[in-house]
């Protein structure tokens, strides 16, 4: 290793002759003798080699794509990117020193405020890792709220989320039980729910819109059935621009993924777990919360609060182990919601619904295809049923440079030849035309 002049000066001041002496305390017996890794490369070479490596990725700008299922392709306004690109936000740590971190703290408080308005929950934390871990944490929190050893999950949720919830439940020795969906409407099967509401059930999780894109119409009934048990509702927060907030419907906990607000798809991560609850549950909540206060001069200010719930204070008794979260994406969400505003957000949501409707009915009109599979109201995705093998259709579309929806055949065998299609404001009429043309060719 070459070392700089300054480094040598410092060594000298330390009375050391070589850098090796700084590592004299590491016994020979554990020495590794260097790294078998390539030499470093310059920025320009790095860029060239990454460009080459990543050029085989076919991305949403180079290939028409109809995937959703929890991660959505939405437009990110330029101003949002500029804001989240600010060095001061990107390169700061968790705001442990609030006096010098007001920018991040206020932005996070505003994120909490936006999500509170959208979900109708007064308390929102400043982020979980993603919707899947938010669900896992909600299962644990439900047990803290209502006791018991069992938690019910709607079957109409993403298998990804489901699997993560399983691991979280396993750690806490909680049993997960499925609640079926109604085969016609796609919403929660209330009979099945009723039959499973036994003793020891702490709560129930369902989504609206659910994994099939169906907006749940029976939230009030579910609330009634659950009685004192915890009602956990999963949302696509984008849909809350127009849909009734779960807080109004009696939810105790609301989770979701705020990736839709200003974060790119990024192969599924980082996204941002949204987590809100009723005020009476706040001390049982995981994650960091930003509170409003004043400084010693009486000026409005913000700081992290109720930290005694957290691991760095309460250690093994904490409500969660989460430390690093997804703060920057919370800033992105706050910036996104501010830039698009109420009117813009409602327009985007409406465009999603309109695109869904149009695409779905146009696919339905192709013989050999049916859409949507369920008759409930949908937000921006829906299931397409096909006479032919959906995996074959998928492959054929790929050869035409189109990535079709997510084939559900293996995940939900009971749904037969089903494929989950999502469409957002990113699709133009021409994009739909292209897909339809391709499907026409297949039928």
């Amino acid at each position, binding site marked *: 290793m070459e070392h700089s002049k300054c480094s040598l000066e410092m060594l000298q001041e330390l009375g050391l002759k070589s850098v090796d002496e700084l590592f004299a305390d590491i016994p020979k017996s554990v020495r590794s003798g260097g790294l078998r890794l390539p030499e470093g490369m310059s920025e320009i070479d790095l860029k060239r080699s990454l460009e080459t490596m990543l050029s085989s990725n076919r991305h949403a700008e180079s290939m028409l794509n109809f995937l959703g299922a929890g991660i959505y392709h939405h437009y990110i306004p330029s101003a949002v990117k500029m804001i989240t690109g600010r060095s*001061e936000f990107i390169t700061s740590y968790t705001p442990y020193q609030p006096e010098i971190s007001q920018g991040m703290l206020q932005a996070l408080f505003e994120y909490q405020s936006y999500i509170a308005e959208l979900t109708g929950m007064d308390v929102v934390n400043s982020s979980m890792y993603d919707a899947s871990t938010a669900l896992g944490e909600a299962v644990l929190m439900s047990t803290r709220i209502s006791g018991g050893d069992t938690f019910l999950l709607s079957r109409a949720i993403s298998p990804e989320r489901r699997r993560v919830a399983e691991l979280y439940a396993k750690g806490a020795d909680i049993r997960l039980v499925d609640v079926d969906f109604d085969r016609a409407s796609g919403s929660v099967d209330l009979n099945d729910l009723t039959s499973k509401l036994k003793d020891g059930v702490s709560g129930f999780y369902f989504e609206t819109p659910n994994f099939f894109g169906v907006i749940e119409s029976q939230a009030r009934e579910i609330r009634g059935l659950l009685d004192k048990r915890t009602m956990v509702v999963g949302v696509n927060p984008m849909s809350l621009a127009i849909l009734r907030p779960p807080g109004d419907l009696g939810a105790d906990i609301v989770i979701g993924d705020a990736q839709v607000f200003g974060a790119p798809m990024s192969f599924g991560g980082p996204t941002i777990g949204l987590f809100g609850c009723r005020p009476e549950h706040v001390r049982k909540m995981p994650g960091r919360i930003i509170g409003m206060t004043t400084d010693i001069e009486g000026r409005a200010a913000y700081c992290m609060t109720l930290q005694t719930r957290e691991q760095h204070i309460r250690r093994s008794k904490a409500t969660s182990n989460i430390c690093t979260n997804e703060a920057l994406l919370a800033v992105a969400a706050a910036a996104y919601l501010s830039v698009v505003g109420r009117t813009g957000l409602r327009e985007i949501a409406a465009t999603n619904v309109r695109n869904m409707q149009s695409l779905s009915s146009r696919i339905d009109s192709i013989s050999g295809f049916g859409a949507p599979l369920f008759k409930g109201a949908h937000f921006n995705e829906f299931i397409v049923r096909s006479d032919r093998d959906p995996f074959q259709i998928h492959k054929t579309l790929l050869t035409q440079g189109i990535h079709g929806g997510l084939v559900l055949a293996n995940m939900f065998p009971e749904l037969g030849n089903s494929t989950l299609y999502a469409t957002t404001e990113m699709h133009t009429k021409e994009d739909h035309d292209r897909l339809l043309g391709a499907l026409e060719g297949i039928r």
Partner: protein
Amino acid sequence: MRYHQADYDVPLLFEACDEQKIDDRFDPTIGGAIPKGLLRSDLNIPDLPERDVVKHFINLSQMNFGVDNGLYPLGSCTMKYNPKICDEVVSWPSVASIHPHQDPSTVQGALRLMHELEGMLCEIGGVDAVTLQPAAGAQGEYTGIHIVRAYHEARGEKRNEVILPDTAHGTNPASAAMVGYDVLEIPSKNGCVDIEALKASISSDTAAFMLTNPNTLGIFEKDVKEIAGTLHDAGALLYYDGANLNAIMGKTSPGHMNFDIVHFNLHKTFATPHGGGGPGAGPVGVKRYLEEFLPVPRIIEKDGKYHLDYDQPKSIGKVKAYFGNFGVLVRAYAYMMMQGGPGLEAASENAVLNSNYLKDKLKDDFELPYGGLRKHEFVLSGKPLKSKGVRTLDFAKRLLDYGFHAPTIYFPIIVDEAIMIEPTETESKETLDRFVDVCKQILKEDPEILKTAPHNTSRRRMDEAKAARDMIFSWRGYKKKTENAK
């Protein structure tokens, strides 16, 4: 040295004059697509011109201190400089605009990058297999302890205790508890693991011991192999908290120290920025015999093609949707490729050099419990401040007035009035010298100045008790409280 942080009165966006168009012709039913009963009747979020929004956030950003503004010697957090090219790369559509459910044939570049990153982490960690799925260090621990549990269960053993030193980071006990373990904290001795106490606490119930090395005081636990042997003899596993990896790259590795499981904090050692709290990434590496327990999917290379393998019957399952925080992984990969092996080793060397340099310059002004070398960080005691009638907290707040972020304070708990300093390798001698000068100057200042510090930040000292008392967590909550008060 003069410093003043930017200070703006930035009202909450919700307070701003709402430039609502008078005529809002929005059809909420969207042509009848959605029944009225499912629709909301109002949405109280502001409608602002881009101009006002940008001003708002630009000015807020100036009221936030980041690594790019100056020294951020937050011990345990490795706040090093993050090369800008890594941010740029992540904005490419080939990174940002790929969907996790895409057909693997359409994301070969992404899979290859992850596969190569796993390989580099194996080499650095001295382990045989890596999962990139965990979203952060704590989730890495959580994953690792689930692997511990799966390992013992697979051997038909039920062990219900995880041991860790009292210097452990709070996430360690919390993670262990979330996997269902009882947590046993053992006191340290001379700043290191008390091997006798450890031996005494090991039993057939012991599932694992969690440790970081160098430890939280920045001291290298030289008996780590003995510790490992003791644990392994008892059938337990050894878990390495990778938060301190920045000290040892190329010199030793968790694997060489006989750890079985390790997590990496890409947002510490591998220069991915911390984003004001996240996102990060906490990949986990294991020795060969634990590989089968790693989360699915595993990324498999065969004949130059990459596949996602979900067929892992012993896998613990999934700790997070999809494949991990890909955007963070790409940044770390880019950083590692630019550094290369020699660069990473130099990073550790300079991190340790900077740490010892600072330690030497400051140890006589404070107290340095347990002398000798330190690795990438060191912990001072602020006890001597008491004679001035001030505390570590006051000293830390006063540092802010000079444009330095404060060190980590009151951690680890075993050092009275702890001041935990980690300069990282990316700080210049000049910066370190200025920091030393300022520390010495603060010690000479009137105690009142310290007790009322900070003075030059956008806000003065917080009333944190009020925040906990008022419990205002959102504009919605604020409005309710103020309306109730009327």
